[in-house]
């Protein structure tokens, strides 16, 4: 349920396993919401720190996503680029409540700022 702190964006199983969906934020970057093979859900600003590729379109593996533009690997839990690459994408706190996905309102608003 949407509250002052959390935005209810839908059911967990609307996100494909090892895939992602987006949340459109008017006036800002989309939020990419990922679901890993182990069933964990993460959210990041949908923007690679490198050349701003849409991370929601990348291949999800382990707890990372490979950016579709230049194959940078970004950690889903920290937003940090992995391996040799340096850079960070803002993370958005997520919680699951009775099968619903809730993302942090303040962080989502920040993406629109």
């Amino acid at each position, binding site marked *: 349920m949407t509250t002052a702190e959390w935005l209810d964006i839908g059911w967990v199983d609307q996100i494909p396993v090892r895939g992602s969906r987006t949340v459109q934020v008017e006036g800002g970057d989309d939020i990419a919401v990922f679901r890993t093979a182990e069933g964990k859900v993460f959210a990041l600003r949908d923007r690679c720190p490198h050349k701003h590729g849409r991370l929601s379109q990348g291949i999800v593996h382990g707890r990372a996503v*490979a950016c579709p533009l230049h194959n940078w*690997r970004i950690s889903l839990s920290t937003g940090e680029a992995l391996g040799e690459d340096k850079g960070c994408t803002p993370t958005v706190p997520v919680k699951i409540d009775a099968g619903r996905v809730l993302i942090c309102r303040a962080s989502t608003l920040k993406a629109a700022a």
Partner: protein
Amino acid sequence: MEHRPIKTDADTRDHLVVIGNGMAGCRAVEELLARDPARYRVTIFGAEPRVNYNRIMLSPVLAGEKSFDDIVINDAEWYAANGIALVAGDPVAQIDRAAKTVTTRGGSTESYDRLLIATGSDPFIIPVPGKDLPGVIAFRDMDDVDTMLAAADAGGDAVVIGGGLLGLEAAHGLSLRGMKVTVIHLMPTLMERQLDEAAGWLLKQALEGRGQTILTGADTAAIVGDAKVEGVKLKDGTLIPASLVVMAVGIRPSVALARDAGLAVGRGIQVDDHMVTSDPAVLAVGECVEHDGQVYGLVAPLWDMCRSLADGLVEKPTGYRGSVTSTKLKVSGIDVFSAGDFSGGDGCEDIVLRDASRGVYKRVIVRDDRIVGAVLYGDTADGSWYFDLLKKQEDVSELRDLLIFGQSFASGGGAADPKAAVAALSDDAEICGCNGVTKGQVVSCIAKGAHSLDAVRGTCKASASCGSCTGLVENLLALTLGDDVQAGPKTMCKCTSFGHDDVRREIVAQAMRSIPEVMQKLHWTTPDGCSSCRPALNYYLLCALPGDYVDDQQSRFVNERMHANIQKDGTYSVVPRMWGGLTNPTELRAIADVVEKFNAPMVKVTGGQRLDIFGIKKEDLPAVWADLNAAGMVSGHAYGKSLRTVKTCVGSEWCRFGTQDSTGLGVKIERMSWGSWMPHKFKIAVSGCPRNCAEATIKDFGIVCVDSGYELHVGGNGGIHVRATDLLCKVATEQEAMDYCAAFIQLYREEARYLERTAPWIERVGVDYVKARIADDPAGREALRARFLYAQSFSQDDPWAQRAEGAEREHHAPMARFTPQEELA
């Protein structure tokens, strides 16, 4: 480390207690576990407060080439995983054979059913005045290395007493660490037990050239100093200042425990061929034993002993017959090798080669047509060959004249071929002396899937320690797997030690049906792969199981998932198929309408003779496709590892030079092959005459029409490295041209590695191979063609039509929308 006994009431297995956590003790346990992991409950006592490490690698640690972690053989996890209790840092002080117990210095007692003594050896300390001063150490364990490193940090002078293997390695390390080093050696030549006078002299020159002072024939009288060491005094009165003295004059088997327990002890603990001491319940192995009158201070015999010991412990005795040893000096940049007996004498022939300018000295000692010894300096490449001949006692009379020039020459090769040399080694020839790994073991480890140097090091440990046999291992990889491995590790990605070809072969051989199954059966190291291996596995399964395999969309690169090309701003470009580059007013009108309706900012004519509509939003893609479908157009697969375009010229219908209907043939080929997934993108062109306006000779498959038929060309591409095609063959009819094309595509689909275009694939396998499979093998060609057409019967559904009808809508629509202004309102 604390003592963690693992005995439980349920554990009724015999208890094997091992005294010594060094190379021999742990290797013996490893060999035992390899034969019967469940037979014994094992407890290991070690004097040092550490896990098991490779003692012979202390020299590289001292020299700064390795860290302690690099030389650990078995880490704490190994003990835990095998249920071994390790008591490290509390050495066994007493054995009570009547009670069958051991008691540690700390006072704890453990009973045993079988006891294995692997106490190794103690450094010999020469009994001179001052030998107990602080700053006088041996070179035996990690603590000694730590002391040397601390001394080196303070700088100053070091004296190494003893110019043997160990002493010289210590001197080398200290010298590299910045100390001024003097080596004192009693005998007239260095390493006299391993080297003859000539090689010893060359070695002395080389070390002096590196700034060390080498004093041979020098006898130590005393070590001087008040509260700590200040210098070494020789018997001739010379005083050499030193803040550190390393005694490396030799080792003695460590037999005190065994002697106190009343076991038979000569120079070492006496054992039979099965490493059993005078007490049948007590075994001994390694440097502490005496077998058949021999005591060994090198690592190689230890591997043989441990094998015999383990065979005996599982009651399949084989028996140890003694070892012939070889040595290599681990001083980087100085290659020294010796093996066997080089004292010479009656009945011995010396074969010597000296090459002063290259600094090479080789000496092979032959008796009764058999090699009995070898000394190599400067060029040790043939060391393992000589050693192998020596151990096998092979008759070398046939090779006698060429022997000294090395294996490749003596075997008639002329030019040195290191691969042939490795190929000629027998299966039991030792490749890795540090870890006791034979050629046969390395080859079997490669055959089981270790297809890179790292994978071999990770599994059988060959070349994982000092690395001096890396070249041999690489050659074995090349021999076992073919030339393509030489370029370096060719694993699919970091998730696996298997290469592309192995994975494909296993998918078919084991009839695997899904990506998780492949990852499970081939021991993937990651839970769900990575962005490199998943698309490859998805393709291999798709190719192996046409019509059966369910494509995994999440393992496809975004373009293939979205059926459009992602652009740098996150929008997509859309390319409808134009068969053979032909179009008509309906199609053009539909494209124009789409451009206006969806505000596409740009339309471009592509190199593949079609139109590319840019700037389409992800959400709009299904609607765009619906409009294009309505005008009869389907996906152009401009985004896929798949058949892209068939480019044509206008051909005989319009062109005054045209010889055949190139346009019509191009359309037919595109109708046949569109929608097929490939290892990489695949482009076709058909030119109507040798003027080649369709640029068929830089395409993956190109047809050049001539008066008498059709020339078929393969393996070309534009791109970073332009490659012109190879001529496959010439055929007479259009139908043949199409059949050959289908067969070629299928061969490429089945045998090229994922992301390998036809050009590098053909360069790898050779155009003759492709000719043999396509042009010269009618039955094989027909089978390939049939497999391609069968696969095509499942792949020619327009993905756009499915999406336009609503399939997989979640790929396009956002999950939710959020408007901050409304929220605030």
